[in-house]
């Protein structure tokens, strides 16, 4: 080895050693976000008070008309479930047409098996549970989309791109809450958007506006003065299917263990 080669190699090795390890690190968007500060001031959440719900179904009707979901098709972005728990410990649940026309009979709709009559004297508990998209913090429906047609907006709402959806149905299978379906007209995946066109204009969602009893409320969890935030932070609220780790953002007052 001559002197020239020795100096060259020494310079290479020293240069290689001094190169910081961070130079090889791939940028993580979450860290990038943390370093620049989270600029989003809004995170939409929903609150349902099952004590107040009377099962009139006006929310379902309003949702269908507001969002152009074919009225007589058996699909809906939101629906109301009725739970009747009888003294023998059995749970009876139904949601005829998603409760679009409310519950105007005491008989439980069993689908093709007809109707089940329940005597008032046998009832231990009876209540209504409105359901809608949970706008999960970790939405499994978004994870599985192979084409990037469904995504999470920074304010937490999960939307579907109708021009980009290929109709594979993965997201419909992935949602543990069963809130997704195919739109009968566009033949693309469809879901509750928290009425994104209304909440971004300062209005409430159509279902919240249509509810006469105040059973449904929408709020911004990042605003500590929001009445919905105050209830979620100070009262006993439940969420659906917590064990899935999806971090659902629809909170329920008076949730019973029979409700899945």
């Amino acid at each position, binding site marked *: 080895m001559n002197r020239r080669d020795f100096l060259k190699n020494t310079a290479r090795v020293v240069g290689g050693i001094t190169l910081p390890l961070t130079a090889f690190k791939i940028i993580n*968007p*979450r860290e990038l976000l943390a370093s620049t500060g989270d600029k989003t001031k809004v995170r939409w959440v929903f609150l349902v008070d*099952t*004590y107040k719900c009377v099962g009139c179904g*006006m929310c379902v009707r309003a949702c269908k008309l507001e969002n152009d979901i074919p009225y007589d098709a058996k699909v809906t972005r939101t629906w109301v479930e009725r739970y009747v728990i009888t003294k023998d410990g059995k749970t009876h649940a139904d949601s005829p047409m998603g409760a679009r026309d409310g519950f*105007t009979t005491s008989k439980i709709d069993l689908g093709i098996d007809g109707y089940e009559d329940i005597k008032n004297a046998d009832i231990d508990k009876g209540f209504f549970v409105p359901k809608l998209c949970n706008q999960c913090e970790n939405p499994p429906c978004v994870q599985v989309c192979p084409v990037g047609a469904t995504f999470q907006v920074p304010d937490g709402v999960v939307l579907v*791109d109708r021009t980009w959806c290929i109709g594979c149905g993965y997201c419909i299978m992935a949602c543990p809450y069963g809130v997704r379906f195919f739109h009968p007209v566009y033949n693309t995946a469809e879901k509750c958007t928290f009425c994104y066109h209304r909440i971004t204009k300062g209005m409430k969602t*159509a279902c919240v*506006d*249509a509810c006469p009893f105040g059973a449904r409320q929408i709020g911004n969890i990042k605003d500590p003065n929001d009445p919905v935030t105050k209830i979620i932070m100070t009262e006993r609220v439940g969420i659906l299917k917590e064990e899935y780790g999806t971090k659902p953002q629809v909170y329920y007052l008076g949730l019973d263990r029979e409700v899945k």
Partner: protein
Amino acid sequence: MKSHVYRPLWVVIGLVCIILVVRYFYVPKDFGIGRRGYMYGWHRKADVEFWKNYKVKYKGSAYCKDCHSENYNKLMQSPHVIIPCEDCHSPAIDHPMDPQKLQIQKGRGLCLRCHYPLPYPTSGRANIPSIDPDTHNPGTECVMCHNPHNPLEGLK
């Protein structure tokens, strides 16, 4: 090495080039990733505007107030004050231009949504006055006798 060995390689390289060119023109320019990376934020950004610009159809009871003040004020004095106008009168959309007339729901089914007797404990439904539709003047529309804007007004 002979060229027949390289030939499939050229085919593969050609295919990759074609796919890259097609992808360049087919994928929208605003297709990108959001703040949470590919898993949750991979999308076409213009679609957020599509959902923001969706048409609002339910305008709220304040929209009805000025022209229909008589019924509006009557409703405000009654126990039915909690019910928004559009629940029974259908969404206003661009009324009075479009639609010129709203489709009012008048059937018994509308009132029975709340007034069918379902005395479920732990549900607000148990506290609403109710009638049995099989015995309470079957076949007659409720509005023939009751005023929905003020049910306490007395029978017509």
